[in-house]
């Protein structure tokens, strides 16, 4: 029996007349990498925004088994979601560009440090307990910086990093927040093949060694097929398939949805291979 970490039940999100997500239900498990895939505009990012409190769902129940037991995400104010152990990254990277890499990672540990600084009072008088907490926060940051290979960049402004490193930094920052579930919105977008491979390694390591479940939106099908344990496929806001990668690859509904797409790199490799064999590519 796998432990579930997130249960999405009948999630619907309407913007005026537009139904972005339509009665979506799925479960993500604690020891899994779960991928949400689907053509552009299928409503994937909207699902993320509902999960992380940026949108209030029209209807639906989102149960998250976080640090403090089960919690209904749709009832939380946006900034409280992270405190239960759900961290996310953004499709268009959102770093604190003017601040240093290290500062970005320390800000991610804000709530913990805020308590340690006695809500600033202890910090102002320079209490030893706060200095210790800050040193620990730096150590945690150092750990993830070393793991993501950004340690040399620690004291540079985050905005000055090249694109691929900014993506890594955003993931490292989310990890510093100490999540049980990490939600990544297209983490491989704009990465070169080597960087994508490293990303895959990192995500597998998170699952296997750090007990962090991963929920990711991704268009790079080879990456998804390689690392995901469980895939949810959306099309026009509806779920059209849900299961392990081997099943998804053969699912006729998925193939049909993707054949409607024109961009080759977004085809599952098998489909692309079929197309090439039939003389189309």
């Amino acid at each position: 029996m796998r432990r579930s970490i997130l249960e999405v039940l009948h999630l619907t999100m309407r913007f005026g007349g537009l139904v972005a997500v339509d009665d979506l239900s799925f479960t993500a498990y604690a020891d899994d990498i779960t991928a949400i895939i689907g053509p552009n505009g299928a409503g994937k990012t909207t699902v993320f925004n509902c999960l992380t409190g940026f949108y209030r769902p029209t209807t639906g129940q989102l149960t998250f088994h976080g640090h403090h037991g089960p919690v209904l995400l749709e009832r939380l104010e946006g900034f409280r979601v992270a405190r239960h152990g759900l961290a996310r990254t953004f499709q268009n990277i959102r770093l604190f560009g003017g601040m240093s890499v290290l500062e970005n990672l320390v800000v991610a540990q804000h709530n913990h440090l805020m308590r340690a600084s006695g809500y600033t009072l202890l910090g102002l008088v320079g209490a030893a307990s706060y200095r210790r907490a800050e040193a620990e926060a730096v150590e945690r940051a150092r750990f993830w910086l070393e793991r993501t290979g950004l340690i040399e960049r620690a004291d540079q402004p985050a905005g000055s990093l090249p694109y691929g490193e900014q993506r890594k930094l955003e993931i490292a920052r989310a990890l510093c927040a100490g999540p049980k579930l990490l939600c990544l919105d297209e983490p491989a977008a704009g990465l070169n093949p080597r960087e994508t491979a490293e990303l895959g390694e990192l995500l597998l390591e998170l699952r296997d060694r750090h007990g962090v479940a991963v929920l990711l939106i991704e268009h790079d099908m080879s990456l998804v097929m390689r690392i995901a344990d469980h895939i949810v496929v959306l099309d026009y806001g509806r779920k059209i398939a849900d299961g392990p990668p081997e099943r998804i690859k053969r699912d006729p509904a998925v193939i049909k949805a993707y054949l409607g797409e024109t961009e080759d790199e977004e085809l599952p490799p098998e489909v692309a291979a079929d197309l090439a064999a039939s003389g189309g590519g």
Partner: protein
Amino acid sequence: MAADAAGAIGPKLKDAALAALVAIALTVPILGMETVPGPDGRLTLDFHFHLVAIAAVLVFAGRLALSLLLRGRQLRPSGRSGAVAEFVSRHGTWFGLAGIAFALVLPFMPFASRYVIDVATTIVIYVMLGWGLNIVVGLAGLLDLGYVAFYAVGAYSYALFAQWFGLGFWICLPIAGLLAAIAGVLLGFPVLRLRGDYLAIVTLGFGEIIRLVLINWHEVTGGPNGIADIPRPTFFGFPFTRDPGEGETAFHELFGLEFSTLHRVIFLYYLALFLALVTNLFVLRIRKLPIGRAWEALREDEIACKALGINPTNTKLTAFALGAMFGGFAGSFFATRQGFISPESFTFIESAIILAIVVLGGMGSQIGVVLAAAVIVLLPEIGREFETYRMLLFGAAMVLIMIWRPRGLLAHREPTLTLAGSTGGTGTRGGGR
């Protein structure tokens, strides 16, 4: 080659001529024709077309020089902070210490007349206001156009508490700060959810509401006449008077000095300097605490902050309240220094001046604020004719700095903590983990 140069300069000349034409069209009615009351009370016009000609020549020359200098490049905000800014910032501690040392000995310098000390005190007060507002604008990135309202709250709090309850300066000071902070929270709580530019307008409106209430609420505030006879400061209970009352000892008697009115002026100067340094110390320290980093993070990206579990409203509220508190401190100093306050001291222009100090100095830069405050206070002192032109210059400078160096002239940010710096720290304690 000559033809080449001519070909390059031709369009630029044309462009500059066009700009000059625009300048003429703009200035003929406003600058060229001044409405003045005629003999029968009706308006007539004085013509100053030479001013229009000067404006046109200046614009022509300026535009031409600019296009020659830029050579086709656009004048765009540069992300770089400039070598000077970096140098000043790197050696900030030394500049700061030298500045403080100079400020400390200033009253005993040979050139330190009463006038010099008075001006220096004014500069120090603006520095303090600038540092206070810098928490809100520079660190948290919230545009507060009604900062002077908190200055007013502080000033009136001191004046009223001192008059009604006979409380001394050192008791009133924290009360004034607290009341200003409460005013900040009351205003901030509903409006800090708003988008940044709405916040600016609401603070502007709030500043005006406070001023209009001060003018119209005669019973408490004395209306437009303000409050006079505010108790002057004492040296911890020893007044600066020639003939102290029964059973009192005056300052000069305490130290066996000849009575001089300069004593109070010098004392006020040190008082202001003390308050300003407390502000500075506080800001430098809080910037390196979680709350300070959260302010800067909010300034950079509010959505990312939310995703990391930072409560944006509360975080902004603390910035707003703390900024207001220092405004309140400065206000109560202002009241005790002047001995008289009225709503006229708390107009929007005052808010704009403080904002200009922060913007020109470089948002978040402590030393920049000192330089900007000095320039802004000294300019009208150099010549009275600068009094009006000062605002003209500031307005233009604010626009130009936003175009040329939007983070401010002296904005160079040093990280609040570095990996290199913290390695040694944790090492001595035997490692953090």
